[in-house]
């Protein structure tokens, strides 16, 4: 029942403000894709276009190869979990779950069986006779999910499913969500602004920036091999260093603020490096000597900000390490965890002025 969804050069503007700008992506049947981006990047606009709640200005949306432009929302067979949940306040939990089957005139036996099955899957059995006003936020979230799954949608869209929940609750809902998605085997698109949720919940991750696809790929690849500075900073912290790579002997080396390092596979010339904290280690008596600017203890480790080559960078040290601002420490680099950005990206001057230390 799950559909292959293709989005081709989809554009949508509100007045003169573009929300989506020629976005293309495809969702494999049964896959889970996380659509991630800052607020205002066009995530929810794309979701509403897929659901049929917004008409795009240009471009096509294909479900299993069929253009759905003329298909109204009520006939697309898409399930949506709204950010506000939008549960019907006048209906019980059971009637909310059954709504989509009810309007499809499903037989009452099938309807009751499906509601019972969903209630069991989502742990809603004791709540079936309550109204949305009488249950908790996490419970509402599960009802909204069950309601969207009830009629076996070809595509399930989730708009910020965890944003309204407190962190402890979000953890348990995240697990329930993952279980339900696995059990229902439909094509899923999750919209989120939270990079951790995106990396954890999606088989694939699509990063939107100002209405365009910045990068897409497997979660690990987006973290390890970001193609742009924006993607690199979105998925993890790290300093940006601009270095000059040159041929030396059989390899490529570059002079960095923490000394000369080998960059196998890089091309000579000006390069931009994203230096994630895990690429650096603190050494008592080795590596390049740098000055500590600040230390904060995070229980199992210390977060140390140091200055090297006029730039700030972050390294994690063992919890027992006793350092104070002004101390000198040694830093070594593991080149395997360095990210070399492609040179093609625009505006190096702007990138250079914005080093990432957060």
């Amino acid at each position, binding site marked *: 029942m799950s559909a292959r969804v293709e989005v081709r050069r989809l554009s949508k503007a509100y007045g003169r403000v573009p929300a989506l700008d020629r976005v293309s992506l495809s969702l494999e049947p049964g896959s889970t894709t996380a659509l991630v981006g800052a607020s205002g990047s066009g995530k929810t606009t794309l979701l509403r276009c897929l*659901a*049929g*709640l917004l008409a795009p200005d240009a471009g096509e949306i294909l479900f299993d190869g069929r253009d759905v432009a003329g298909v*109204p*929302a*009520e*006939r*697309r*067979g*898409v*399930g*949506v979990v*709204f950010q*506000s*949940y*939008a*549960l*019907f*306040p*006048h*209906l019980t939990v059971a009637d909310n779950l059954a*709504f*989509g089957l009810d*309007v*499809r005139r499903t037989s009452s036996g099938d309807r009751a069986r499906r509601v019972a099955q969903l209630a069991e899957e989502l742990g809603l059995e004791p709540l079936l006779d309550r*109204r*949305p*006003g*009488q249950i908790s936020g996490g419970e*509402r979230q599960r009802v909204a999910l069950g*309601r*969207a799954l009830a*009629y076996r949608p070809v595509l399930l869209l989730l708009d910020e499913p965890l944003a309204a929940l407190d962190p402890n609750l979000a953890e348990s809902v995240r697990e329930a969500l993952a279980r339900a998605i696995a059990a229902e085997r439909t094509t899923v698109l999750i919209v989120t602004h939270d990079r951790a949720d995106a990396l954890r919940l999606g088989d694939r991750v699509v990063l939107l920036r100002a209405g365009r696809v910045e990068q897409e790929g497997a979660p690990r690849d987006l973290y390890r091999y970001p193609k742009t500075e924006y993607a690199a900073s979105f998925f993890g912290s790290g300093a940006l260093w601009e270095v000059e790579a040159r041929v030396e002997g059989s390899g490529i080396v570059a002079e960095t603020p923490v000394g000369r390092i080998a960059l196998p596979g890089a091309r000579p010339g000006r390069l931009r490096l994203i230096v994630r904290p895990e690429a650096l280690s603190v050494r008592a008596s080795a590596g390049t000597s740098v000055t500590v600017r600040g230390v904060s203890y995070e229980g199992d480790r210390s977060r140390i900000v140091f200055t090297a080559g006029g730039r700030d960078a972050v390294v994690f040290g063992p919890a027992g390490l006793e350092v104070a601002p002004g101390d000198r420490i040694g830093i070594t680099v593991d080149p395997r965890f360095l990210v070399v950005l492609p040179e093609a990206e625009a505006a190096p001057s702007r990138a250079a002025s914005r080093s990432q230390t957060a």
Partner: protein
Amino acid sequence: MTSRGRRSGQDPIGPSAAWIAPAALFLLVAFVAPFASLLRAASHGDPAAFLRELGGVWTQPHTRRALGNGLALSAAVSIAAILLCLPPAHLLARARFRGRSAARMLLSVPLSFSGVIVGFLAIVMLGRVGFVPAVAQALFGRPLGAGLAYALPGLFLAYLFFEIPRAVLALEAAFARLDPELDAAARTLGAGPVQRFTRVTLPALRPALLATFATTFSVSLGSYGAALILSRRFSVLPVEAYQEFTAFGNDAGAAAMAIWLAGISIAVSVAAGRDPVRGSEGAR
């Protein structure tokens, strides 16, 4: 008493009960005591006499007819006002267009009118030499609608005119409180326009519809200015009560009629307010 109330309040920074006391005292003097006087006047201190007086309103043909007239007119006008105002209220709440606040302002003008003014406006438009018949005479050669103001349809239209602002503003507020995502959710779940209206919008609006009905019904039942101006044969209970009180000096009879009117209005308001869905209205 006020200092104890203050200590028992859960909010030590907030106001004490003394802030409410003047208004409470006023209501006691200007509303509770007069209401008690009504009951006393109708009963002469004797419960059996009280029931006799109340029963008299029902058994006497002229008061029963006046009460029935008022109930039928108020119910019909309230339902018509709600049906007529639902689509424009939805438009005012949801659509963005120029002149929206001007439209809302114009619609709110009759709120300040008494029934008497509405009656006059009905005569101006639909009287024997009213504006509508004059225009119709000029256009079609026949004075269409002449004298309608003095007949039942005219009274109905006058009361409807009176209730339009109340209905449209109350329903607009109700639509504005309604989560627009509910309609979107129903669409994605497969509900067509009719199903969305009957299964989602209407039930979600139910508390507001009942409250609006209660308000327009109470206002129509208690208003008598239009009937005073327009009707010669069609009497309503407030007019009967007024005459009973001023012309015949029958305090007990007038009080009994006032109690009927108040009792019916209060009962409708309480019934409309005691809606099972209301408790979950805030749920989203």
